[in-house]
């Protein structure tokens, strides 16, 4: 992919990622956030976080399944935008919904499983955002960096659980997100397993070959 094409692609991704926020700001100005604006804003920010997390997790399966790889350059951008919306979602809860009721929030984090896993998801994303720069990748070394960034799988599971556990019965969208996550992680698992089996297969073939030689030897 050419350099201008890549720049244009990033521009488009920036615009798409900012769209939910711009929509909220526009609705805020137009008094269009509905009867329960705090709840609406919290939901949109949370929804957007989940969508961007899933989008960032979709890039690798796309590469594995189609051998197309130009999208991999978008991984950091999508991941950081997911973190950005997670922070906005959390800030809305702290500032607007709970209005700095720290005691109440702490009690909720300890007592309400959906809030516990939500906090866990956000916490897991912090080191990933902090080590997202090219310099940090170099400092950590590629392998360590990759290991650390596998935390995104745990963070995504926690984020989806957060949605499943807070939603009232009758809502299906949390399960739609969960299915997508299972598919995205499933492709990786299948790929890793296949690779591991191939390696073991290679080892077995090698071993079998060696045995033959041994048998033939005397």
């Amino acid at each position: 992919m050419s350099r201008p094409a890549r720049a244009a692609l990033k521009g488009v991704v920036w615009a798409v990622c900012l769209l939910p926020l711009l929509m909220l700001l526009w609705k805020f100005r137009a008094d269009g956030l509905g009867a329960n604006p705090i709840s609406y804003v919290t939901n949109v920010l949370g929804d957007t976080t989940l969508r961007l997390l899933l989008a960032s997790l979709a890039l690798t399966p796309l590469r594995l399944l189609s051998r197309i790889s130009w999208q991999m350059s978008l991984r950091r951008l999508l991941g950081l935008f997911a973190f950005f919306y997670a922070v906005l979602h959390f800030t809305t809860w702290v500032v607007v919904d709970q209005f700095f009721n720290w005691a109440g929030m702490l009690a909720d984090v300890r007592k309400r499983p959906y809030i516990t896993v939500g906090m866990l998801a956000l916490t897991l994303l912090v080191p990933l955002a902090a080590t997202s720069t090219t310099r940090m990748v170099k400092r950590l070394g590629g392998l360590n960096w990759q290991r650390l960034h596998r935390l995104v799988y745990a963070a995504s599971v926690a984020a989806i659980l957060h949605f499943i556990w807070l939603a009232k019965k009758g809502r299906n969208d949390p399960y739609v997100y969960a299915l997508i996550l299972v598919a995205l992680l499933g492709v990786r698992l299948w790929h890793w397993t296949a690779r591991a089996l191939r390696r073991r297969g290679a080892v077995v073939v090698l071993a079998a070959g060696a045995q033959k030689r041994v048998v033939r030897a005397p």
Partner: protein
Amino acid sequence: MLIRRAPDIKSSEITTPDVYLSRRAFMAGAAAMALSPAGVAGAAAPPAPPLLPAKPNPAFRVDDPPTKFESATTYNNFYEFGVDKADPSIHAGGLRTRPWTVRVEGHCARPKTYDVDELMRLFPLEERVYRLRCVEGWSMVIPWTGFPLASLIKRVEPTSRARFVEFTTLFDPEQFPGQKTGLLSFSSLDWPYAEGLRLDEALHPLVLLTFGMYGRALPNQNGAPARVVVPWKYGFKSAKSIVRIRFVTEQPRTTWEKAAPNEYGFYSNVNPTVDHPRWSQATERRIGEFRRRPTLTFNGYADQVASLYAGMDLRKDF
């Protein structure tokens, strides 16, 4: 405790429908111009229903100002129309509320199928302002129009075998898109919607058989043409668009009880000290207000209804 301090808002001070309708038209135009990937939060409601005047009953009023009509008609839980708050106002146009009958049956001496227009003329209509507390943690203040359910119950003479009253909402997937079983409806509710009260609860003078709100007939998304309003219980106990009232001996199984028995009990009285298993019920957000406010025991109607539950463990019978 209710602190009686805030002045009453006169009905003349409530925004008139003409004003919000023109504002709504403006909003709809603006919304049409905007790119809106996540749907419109303040969805435009169908036109306001016809006037249904009734004399306010001064014995039933709330010191807080009523919720804006626009909020009360665009922020609804009515899963028959869809699970999003805006779904009911968006899809409400598909519900046909005339002709409409309400069958009163079961253990009573005079069962009868009432045409809704006949039903609403049985007793004088009155306006009562009640608090409405949703189990999700938000609340409203709404002027309802109707008459005490007790009047109708006494008229049909329940027998000694009548211990509970069951309310059933219309079942018609053609009119209620939320009742359709689609590809992804694996976890939808059990239709038709069923609710219930103990007979003595149903006879309580606070329970209103309701045909209108804000001086108008009920908008479809609020449960037209006839619903129940039980102000000391969480909102889902107040069944909407009812087609049947039945007197039964056994405690009826309600829709939300069937959906999640550990979360939604038969009684579901508003109670700040008994949390929903997943969230606190100690506070609520009054629609239109910024800060959360403490939730009142029995939604502020404790002095009138607490005696119904004397000797009961409200943690067990939540």
